[in-house]
């Protein structure tokens, strides 16, 4: 149920194909049956439902835009945007984890050599193995190119030492892509490595206690002299940062889509609520100021949806401004979605604040989308700089 039709306004540019409509139907069914009934409980008990996630893997969720020859579904980013929006209506946190997993699978599929693709990707695509993406460090977040984890070449191996902070899925996942410094300061000295969870010297910090995203663990990843065979270096030395940023373009769209799905779910709930809840002798939906709130929520979510789908097309078609397009979609969608979810909470009154209604969970979950995969301030840096560069 949506206030207006789910299909975006700007057909034919954004009209869904028959296949896309079928993909959305399938994801809706999956989210309604497998995620939504459990989402509140998983949040409360901080349960990471690995079994359910593996079940999603059998349907193709582990390699949505991974090539078919290594077990991926071979779909487009436009498809992925639809899939993540729908999935997040069941559980924002699980959808967001699946997005991060897809970034990892896609990186190895795209930048790996033949042997790496065959060795790692099929089991990531099926989600027999789960992935984590390790860029952030305690002293390098927004300024990720300042990371200090070192990888020192030693014969046929590299020795990795350092700490990665805020790593989603860490401790429960199987494959870690670690960005580490092999050379000079700055982005050009960074290299990516594939590290399995059982590597000697790899350990994990405590599961962070956090505001939302409780159904997936967030831990520090500690690398204490972890020996990684040179065969597990992803791409060449010094290429790690560029690869990590390319992966984030897609990640940002998925996160934007997850925000959109969560907010749409909250909006749908709020509409139901104010139509049935009566005060001052009539349904709340007859209070004009609340009608205006609904109008703002719907308008901004539709605008975000258009921006998102258009940025997804930019990745699919290799648009030169793709990084700025993805940053705009991420910044705008995560901001308006958080505002809309918060408004949905307000429209629910006291009930919105109760865990049972699921709204406060969506608000808490969406809040972090304004921070991770590049804060929204960093998105503005990317967008603003790309505009200014054009002028110079």
């Amino acid at each position, binding site marked *: 149920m949506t206030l207006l039709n789910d299909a975006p306004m700007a057909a034919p540019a954004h009209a869904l194909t*028959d296949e896309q409509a*079928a*993909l959305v139907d*399938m994801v809706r069914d999956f989210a309604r049956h497998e995620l939504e009934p459990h989402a509140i409980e998983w949040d409360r008990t901080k349960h990471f439902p690995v079994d359910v996630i593996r079940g999603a893997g*059998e349907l*193709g*969720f582990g390699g949505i835009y991974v090539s078919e020859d290594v077990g991926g*579904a*071979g*779909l487009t980013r436009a498809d992925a945007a639809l899939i993540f929006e729908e999935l997040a209506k069941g559980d924002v946190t699980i959808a967001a984890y699946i997005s991060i997993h897809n970034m990892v699978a896609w990186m190895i599929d795209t930048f790996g050599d033949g042997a790496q693709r065959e060795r790692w990707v099929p089991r990531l695509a099926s989600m027999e193995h789960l992935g984590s993406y390790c860029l952030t460090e305690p002293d390098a977040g927004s300024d990720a190119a300042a990371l200090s984890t070192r990888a020192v070449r030693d014969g046929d191996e590299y020795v990795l030492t350092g700490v990665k902070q805020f790593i989603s899925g860490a401790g429960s996942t199987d494959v870690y892509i670690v960005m580490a410094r092999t050379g000079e300061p700055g982005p050009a000295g960074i290299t990516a490595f594939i590290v399995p969870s059982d590597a000697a010297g790899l350990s994990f910090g405590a599961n962070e206690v956090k505001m939302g995203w409780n159904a997936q663990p967030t831990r520090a990843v500690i690398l204490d002299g972890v020996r990684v065979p040179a065969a597990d270096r992803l791409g060449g030395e010094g290429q790690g940062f560029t690869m990590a940023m390319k992966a984030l373009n897609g990640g940002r769209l998925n996160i934007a889509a997850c925000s959109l799905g969560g907010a749409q779910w909250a909006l749908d709930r709020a509409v139901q609520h104010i139509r049935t809840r009566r005060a001052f002798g009539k349904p709340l939906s007859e209070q004009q100021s609340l009608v205006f709130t609904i109008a703002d929520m719907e308008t901004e979510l539709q605008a975000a949806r258009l921006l998102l789908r258009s940025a997804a097309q930019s990745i699919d078609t290799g648009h030169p401004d793709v990084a700025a397009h993805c940053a705009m979609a991420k910044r705008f969608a995560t901001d308006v979605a958080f505002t809309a979810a918060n408004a949905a909470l307000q429209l629910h009154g006291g009930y919105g604040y109760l865990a049972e209604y699921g709204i406060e969970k969506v608000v808490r979950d969406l809040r972090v989308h304004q921070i991770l995969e590049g804060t929204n301030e960093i998105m503005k840096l990317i967008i603003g700089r790309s505009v200014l560069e054009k002028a110079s």
Partner: protein
Amino acid sequence: MRIIVLIKHVPDTWEERVLDPATGRLDRSASERVVDEITERALEAALALKDSDKSIEVVALTMGPGESTGAIKKALSMGADSGIHLVDDALAGADAMTTAATIAAALRDAGADLIIAGNESTDGRGGMLPAMLAEHLGLPALTFISDLVVEGGRVRGERATETATSVVSAALPAVVSITEGMPEPRFPSFKGIMGAKKKPVASHSLADLGLAADATPRAASVVLSCEPRPGRTGAEPIVDDGSAGQRLADYLAQQRLV
């Protein structure tokens, strides 16, 4: 082995279903259409057999208007190998007799070793079709089956009644109708959805089936009239002026409900 599954496109059970008072027929535009839940389980039963024996071919057959290809597409995306669509304007409003005769005509030379249907559809709920079909085809019918096994050229299943569970079996080919006691259908995979378009779907009109439109059994039952269910009456709304609790309790006590 070739399994043909009968599937049906029906209005979503969870939405309001509407009859057109002028024709007495279902208003197909009133609600979203989905694959009937029980026939999805029938398909799941066939696909589960295929999971353990890849040589099994699963065909999804539906009779319905043009838009029913949606049901076939869903079946193909879940894993059926091909589809058969029986579609003809002259079939609009077909009753169970006509439907059974038409489907039987399509199945007669289709080479099915096993035909699986739902025990009833969630819209019509006649529950007659599988038995009628078996009669037309001269095949054994195992109806209302849960727990289906195919082994050594025979099909076996359990049939629960109010007092006992019978184990019934028949030599193939046979017609089986399954109940909602069978396992839930699988979700289609992304690959299944993207691959569905490439799978063959045959479309047959009455003429293709050798049933000339005017010679088809005319509807043996005709809906003469239908009216919407009257709204609820007899309820006495209680507006809470502070005494609602008391009045509700009095009412329940008066009706000997507490």
